[in-house]
């Protein structure tokens, strides 16, 4: 059965059964098409607390929906569907299914913090965006975003060695995000470095790539950092109701 105003209806709300028999009558396919209502029928009361438990989300309950964040937002200027004000409201009121509809754009925040400076209530919307992206990922609603993957590789290396070595971070990042190592921009950058960097520095960079030095006496600091990160992870998983609180 054709639906005439189909453009007005959310595709996921149109339901059709390929095989359905009602009271002995075959209503398979279009005959059983129905439209699910748009009505919000419940609030998820845990949602605001869950976001608030993640770093950056702490001040979400201060928002009064003025729209200054969305108005000043870099990404919103390009994509009108990117609306921090709106997501903050959905989270505060526990409209989880509405939030999940935008799961694929929330992580696009570029952390420019224009919203943070515009917000009259000190919500720090940039932090809320970050917390929301983490929440989506931790709950398994989105795969890890490239920026989260980058952060992880970066943090892992700092914790392991107390130092970072850029080339290995970039290599790991490209590998984990399934990108070829030979990126045009990377080649151009390497060529630029080769031509312009003083020889002494070049040598040190090359040695660092080969021998991966650590900060002296790092193992104690490393143990403390690891313990702290694990504890934060545990707490976050507990706050999000994710099982035993052990890190993944």
């Amino acid at each position, binding site marked *: 059965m054709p639906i005439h105003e189909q453009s007005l209806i959310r595709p996921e709300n149109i339901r059709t059964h390929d095989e359905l028999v009602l009271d002995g009558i075959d209503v398979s396919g279009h005959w059983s098409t129905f439209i699910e209502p748009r*009505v*919000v*029928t*419940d*609030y998820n*009361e845990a949602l605001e607390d869950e976001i608030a438990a993640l770093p950056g989300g702490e001040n979400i309950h*201060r928002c009064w929906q003025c729209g200054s964040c969305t108005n000043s937002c870099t990404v919103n200027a390009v994509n009108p569907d990117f609306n921090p004000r709106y997501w903050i*409201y959905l989270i*505060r009121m526990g409209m989880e299914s509405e939030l999940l509809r935008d799961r694929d754009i929330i992580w696009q925040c570029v952390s420019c913090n224009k919203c943070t400076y515009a917000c009259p209530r000190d919500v720090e919307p940039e932090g809320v965006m970050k917390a929301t992206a983490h929440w989506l990922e931790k709950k398994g609603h989105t795969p890890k975003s490239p920026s989260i993957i980058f952060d992880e590789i970066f943090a892992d290396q700092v914790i392991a060695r107390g130092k970072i070595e850029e080339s290995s971070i970039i290599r790991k990042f490209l590998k984990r995000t399934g990108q070829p190592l030979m990126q045009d921009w990377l080649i151009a950058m390497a060529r630029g470095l080769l031509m312009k960097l003083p020889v002494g520095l070049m040598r040190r960079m090359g040695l660092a790539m080969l021998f991966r030095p650590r900060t002296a006496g790092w193992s104690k600091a490393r143990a403390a950092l690891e313990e702290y990160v694990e504890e934060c992870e545990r707490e976050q998983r507990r706050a999000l109701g994710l099982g035993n609180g052990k890190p993944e």
Partner: protein
Amino acid sequence: MTGPVLVVGGGPAGLAAAEALSGVGRNAVLVEKEDRLGGAPILSGYAKLVPTGEWAKDAIGGMAARVEADAAVDVRTGCTVKEFGGEPGAFTATLSDGSTVEAPAAILCTGFTHFDSVNKPEWGFGSFPDVVTTTQVEQMISSGQGVRCPSDGRTPKRVAILLCVGSRDRQIGREWCSKICCTVSANIAMEIREELPDCHVYIYYMDIRTFGLYETSYYWRSQEEFKVKYIKARIAEVTSDGERLIVKGEDTLVKRPITIPFDMVVHAIGMDPNVDNLLLSSIFGVELEPHGNIARQSAYGGMGRTSRPGVFVAGAATGPETIDDSIAQANAAAIAALGAGRAATGPKAARKAA
């Protein structure tokens, strides 16, 4: 010009007027139609008051006790004024107990009447026992019983407070804002969250009018400390699925219809003009303003004057007022009443007379 000033109505305003008169050495006759003093906060059993957090029975009960013990105030409870005549400086009032009072001036502190939610049947009051009013919740708290669903005594897990019930509503001829119900609702929401931390409270509003300093201590405190949720929606209907109440409306910020289950729905009822106002208007010969409250003559100077010289008004009798404003107005009216019928003396008056 001597004799007691006639004060009608023994709520916060009337008590304050009587106390102020006594304080400057003037007697007062306080006529109260109910059998005890205190007005709405006592008669309706309010809990903790905005903005001090004191219990009504201590704060307003304390005022009533002071006035009752005051030798300068002649308290007549269970009594009304039947007739009133004379001139400023020399009025005669006939009371319902048959006695008469000679008074130079009168102050009307006759207050307001609570809106009766039965007049908004779509919001379920009277049909579903778990739909209650703010005064009922105040009583649940002040009696020590705690906030419970009247149907079966269970503790609610989710409560909706609907604002502007009986206010700002042309359909029922009430276009005014009752001024205090937003703040009272935020106060009640915090009290519910304090008593029942597992119970979530949602306030459905059209505008939030927690004016002045209440912005921080009620509007934001209720959200930041007590996690009360505010949703911009005027509820269309309250029904029931047989187990819980169903609140229907539109969440205007997401443009989506909502039908949300609740255990308890609270009407933030407004302040109607006193149902006695037409009678009071004819007995005392004072005009009413268009909404039906006793009209004030002037907002600047001559506080509390009505259309009739020598008769003054204070408190919620003039329209929705808070307790502290009612008390301030009563003090102003008491000063005005002391001057009623008196000729000014002093150099300027002497020059004028010459």
